[in-house]
């Protein structure tokens, strides 16, 4: 592995990987929509909260027309019982899903890295205690706990000054998801640190009597970026999935807002009659997650030192 720097090579390889590039584009589009969709949406007449009484029947509240009432006005159909526009709900929902997944990932990584470094670097009892805590956290049936505590914790969060309702619920999601996710990352980092701290340059740094913090942040952290980058890219889709699963089980945002998981959960009642309720959000969600994973894999391969000669 000579001549060009690691970064250059990684980027070169990624660029050569057509699929990865495609996914990257897809993801950028998703984020763009997530960020600007709700901003531009209204001017296009999209409104996830507006009820369309005309779009649903008086006989059971089902959408009028085929495929969940697909029409010029509602390109992807309308919600059973309210006539709310599915497309709009998807746009607004995507934003929430992305916000939750992204911030949860960042939080997880931050916590995981800090704890991991401390554990790996401090060794001794600190390492031991942290290790036990990790075991404990990993042992919990986290879905169950998240379900059981969602109400009380959401209230606690509201008490902390977060606006009531969905802001608090989103905060809760972010917090719980990351609080059950950090140990995995911490373990990876810990391992990395332990092997790194044995290497000469750290030994040298210590020999030269530089402070612990300096060693951590100037010597060790820079060497962690590659594994972290990969892990993060793979953590995002996992969290998108988790968020969906949680909303599917009823934790998470509540009307008038919605997310993929919530929409899929509601589809359960109707998809025998209106399959699009299942397949439209499902497909869009799937594409998002698959793109993330493909990109993550590509990145992993690109960063894999064994693949370099």
């Amino acid at each position: 592995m000579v001549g060009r720097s690691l970064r250059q090579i990684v980027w070169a390889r990624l660029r050569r990987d057509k699929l990865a590039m495609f996914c990257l584009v897809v993801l950028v589009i998703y984020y763009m929509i997530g960020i600007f969709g709700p901003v531009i949406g209204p001017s296009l007449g999209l409104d996830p909260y507006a009820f369309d009484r005309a779009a649903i029947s008086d006989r059971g509240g089902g959408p009028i027309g085929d495929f969940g009432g697909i029409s010029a006005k509602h390109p992807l159909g309308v919600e059973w019982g309210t006539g709310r526009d599915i497309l709009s709900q998807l746009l607004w929902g995507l934003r929430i899903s992305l916000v939750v997944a992204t911030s949860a990932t960042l939080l997880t990584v931050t916590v995981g890295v800090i704890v991991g470094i401390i554990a790996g670097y401090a060794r001794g009892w600190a390492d031991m205690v942290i290790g036990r805590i990790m075991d404990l956290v990993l042992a919990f049936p986290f879905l169950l706990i998240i379900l059981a505590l969602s109400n009380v914790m959401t209230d606690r969060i509201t008490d902390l000054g977060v606006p009531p309702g969905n802001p608090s619920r989103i905060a809760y999601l972010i917090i719980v998801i990351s609080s059950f996710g950090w140990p995995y990352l911490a373990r990876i980092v810990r391992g990395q640190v332990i092997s790194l701290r044995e290497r000469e340059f750290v030994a040298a740094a210590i020999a030269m009597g530089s402070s612990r913090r300096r060693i951590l942040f100037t010597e060790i952290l820079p060497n962690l970026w590659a594994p972290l980058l990969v892990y993060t890219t793979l953590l995002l889709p996992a969290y998108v999935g988790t968020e969906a699963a949680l909303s599917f089980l009823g934790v998470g945002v509540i009307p008038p807002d919605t997310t993929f998981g919530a929409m899929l959960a509601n589809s359960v009642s109707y998809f025998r009659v209106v399959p699009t309720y299942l397949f439209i959000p499902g497909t869009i969600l799937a594409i998002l997650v698959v793109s993330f994973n493909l990109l993550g894999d590509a990145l992993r391969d690109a960063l894999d030192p064994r693949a370099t000669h």
Partner: protein
Amino acid sequence: MINVEEVEGRAQHSPERPFLSVENLAVQFKTEDGIVQAVDGVSFTLERGKTLAIVGESGSGKSVTAQAIMGLVKGMGGIVSGEIWLDGQELNRLSPSEVQALRGDEMAMIFQDPMSSLHPFYRIGDQIVEAIVAHRKVGRGAARREALEMLKHVGIPAAERRIDAYPHQLSGGMRQRVMIAMALINSPQLLIADEPTTALDVTVQAQILELIRRLQGEFGTTVIIITHDLGVVADVADDVAVMYAARIVEMAPTSEIYNKAEMPYTLGLLASIPRRDRGQQERLDPIPGNPPSPIHLPPGCVFQPRCKYWEQVPESQGDPRTVRPELVETSPRHYVRCLLPQDVRRRISHEVLQSLRGSAE
């Protein structure tokens, strides 16, 4: 003794070949980044009982050459062309199972890192026994006794106890001795030692080399030592072949290399030999820059980008940035791949070696 055909030329088959003769060996790897030419047209011969040192930086293709001889490259997905004659047998044409039968029996290999090269889950004794029973009809009991003998022989203290130890329970030196024991257990004709000492600390290095040389004497084994450090080969090897960017760039008897090396790269290597009187850190590195990426080799002389002297190449020889030099015999049994005229080479050589001695005093 050494007898090199024109590298790019065809190898002609003489009825009685030297014990080992590698002819126009080339190895390619397909990677995501394109085809890597790991070994390019390497040829050399080696008589029975002699020792050849192949020297070069990591990535120069020396290890791949060795593994190609052992027939391990194909397993790694490499494409091997050229001919490898061992004791009158052309290995490259043999079936995998036939090569496998030779491996560990006719020819054996010692690897760089004894820790990772020994299987962490098995007792060292068992790993040696495994090597025995793979090639000979011996009872386990006998095999174990043999293994114990060999362990003692390679100088493992309290071998009776150590034979049941796991690799991670032994020191680096011990592990390397075990590796050697394992390699020699079937008294192979050819022993390839791939950087046998790099993973060990200096004092142990000497011991291991000493051991190899002693055993070579006893068993009459032919040895190829692969190293990046010209220093270690001085008193072990009969001949030295210097490799750079998948090619042999200079080859000569050891003394010739030490006293009359002509290829600037070899001179660089000589200069970088650590001396007792020099601290590790102040070891000077007279070769600027890095070896070229095996994927994009310079079109001309592969060493030109790092060569201090390439401007001194006269027009008549051609531009080193475009013309690939060939391996030519500059004096009997001394081969050099360089576009510099002989007199210029010798002048440079003289200066450099002088300065080295100077700095030595």
